[in-house]
């Protein structure tokens, strides 16, 4: 499967080289540098994680790059980070919208930073040699532990730390990978000394998590700060005084050999325009108003003169 993709990419790349060579007057197709040029000017495969906001961000990236005349292929909703980072490393995809903190902890088992700039610097140093990150945006989509209004009132909950005496009676819900992930169940134990009664694997801040929290299958759910369900259902986001959930600024993670000035400028311009409120509003259009992510992405790009 991988081999076939690689062969296909190689064929596309060589076809592109031939086309470039035959059009250019007097250029030597065998001249050194010709191949690297063709590769970096080749198709950018944009991937995304399997939740609406990430797919939307990928659409925004793809739209902005197409507007600059770059050939873009989309492979959206791939899965969790544990699945798409290997895909990025083996060249199945070239670009994916990422979040600084979570990515830092993925690459760097000793990640310590929690503030936005510290995390960004630490991440920049930890990214594998073949990959790189561009400018971060102000938009932050943080993990948060969320409870219903009733639960918050009943136990007088304001922060995650308030869960300590009662966690043993509560069920925690979140994506399946939360069970083993550093910022997941092990992190809650290490930082807040929380031992939940059980962990229930659901989805990544999706309809299952919201439904399970509303219905009481779980008492505490992992829901993202930009998720529209929070306002819709009056859920209470618990504070994180010890910074278990580190800064999560949206940042493009891209294969180093694919970056050129045009691509970097286009993606950095997006990061400059995004903040948490803007992103939250865009996500609501996709999740609540059921608009096509590609359409929402296009609107954002047009409004900001990016596409």
């Amino acid at each position, binding site marked *: 499967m991988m081999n076939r993709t690689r062969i296909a990419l190689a064929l596309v790349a060589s076809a592109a080289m031939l086309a470039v060579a035959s059009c250019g007057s007097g250029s030597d197709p065998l001249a050194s540098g010709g191949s690297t040029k063709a590769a970096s000017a080749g198709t950018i495969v944009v991937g995304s994680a399997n939740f609406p906001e990430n797919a939307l961000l990928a659409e925004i990236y793809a739209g902005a790059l197409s507007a600059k005349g770059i050939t873009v292929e989309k492979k959206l909703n791939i899965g969790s980070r544990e699945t798409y980072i290997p895909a990025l490393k083996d060249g199945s995809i070239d670009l994916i919208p990422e979040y600084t903190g979570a990515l830092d902890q993925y690459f760097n088992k000793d990640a310590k930073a929690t503030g936005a700039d510290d995390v960004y610097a630490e991440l920049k140093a930890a990214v594998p040699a073949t990959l790189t990150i561009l400018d971060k945006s102000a938009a932050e989509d943080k993990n948060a532990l969320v409870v219903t209004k009733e639960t918050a009132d009943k136990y007088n909950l304001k922060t995650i730390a308030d869960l300590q005496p009662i966690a043993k009676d509560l069920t925690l819900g979140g994506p399946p990978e939360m069970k083993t992930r550093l910022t997941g169940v092990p992190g809650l134990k290490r930082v807040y000394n929380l031992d939940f009664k059980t962990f229930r*694997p659901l989805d990544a801040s999706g309809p299952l998590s919201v439904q399970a929290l509303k219905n009481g299958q779980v008492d505490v759910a992992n829901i993202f700060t930009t998720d529209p369900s929070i306002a819709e259902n009056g859920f209470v986001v618990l504070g994180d005084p010890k910074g278990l959930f580190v800064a999560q600024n949206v940042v493009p993670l891209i294969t180093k050999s694919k970056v050129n000035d045009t691509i970097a400028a286009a993606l950095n311009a997006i990061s400059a325009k995004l903040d948490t409120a803007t992103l939250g509003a865009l996500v609501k259009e996709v999740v609540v108003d059921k608009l096509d992510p590609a359409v929402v992405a296009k609107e954002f790009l047009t409004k900001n003169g990016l596409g």
Partner: protein
Amino acid sequence: MINRIIAWLADVAHWQGDDGILRRLVEHMEYATTALVIAALIAIPLGLYIGHTGKGRFLVVNAVGAARAIPSLGLLYLAFFWLAPRLSGEVAFLAPAGLVLVVLAIPPILSGAYAGVEGVEPAARDAAVGMGMRGTEVMRHVELPCALPLILSGIRSAMLQVIATATIAAVLGLGGLGRFLIDGLASQDFPQTASGAILVAVLALAVDMAFALVQRSVVSPGLTGRYGKVSL
């Protein structure tokens, strides 16, 4: 890879506790048998009725054929989004998963039942009527025993499909052996995913084999020919 799968399966810690293999196995069988019983309660009487009377045959044959084409995962999401907001508690998750499995199990059981009754030799039926049996008696004493092999093989093939497909319960955050597939994939723990798949396959085969034995013991020897040619 094979060694890592064996190591995963051989780890005693993976068999115990609330998320261990034994607990998941029990959950898996609970989902599968519940769905199968509900499906059988619907499909067997309906199939017998259609086979006996011939009424509604065209409609049901085609409806059953169409039902086989329903994608289980698609139906699961559809059922979840439709049912979950209308139900509360654990049922909000169990009902959509159960519905999918019941829909999956009905077609093979139903077609086994009506085909079985339909295929009963007219001579046997005539003889029963000639002996003074009424419609329901013909059904109970002649048609049902003669149709039993096909009814049972319908149930058996439904069971096999339901056990294999009950893994999708895990998609909704429920238990069952599908948990190992979903959790293993989400955290790139391939030995766990592969072990889950192996466990489902082994369970399906084991239950199928057990069913074959049951089938052998309850079907009239006169039908299977195991006692040689015996006239009815």
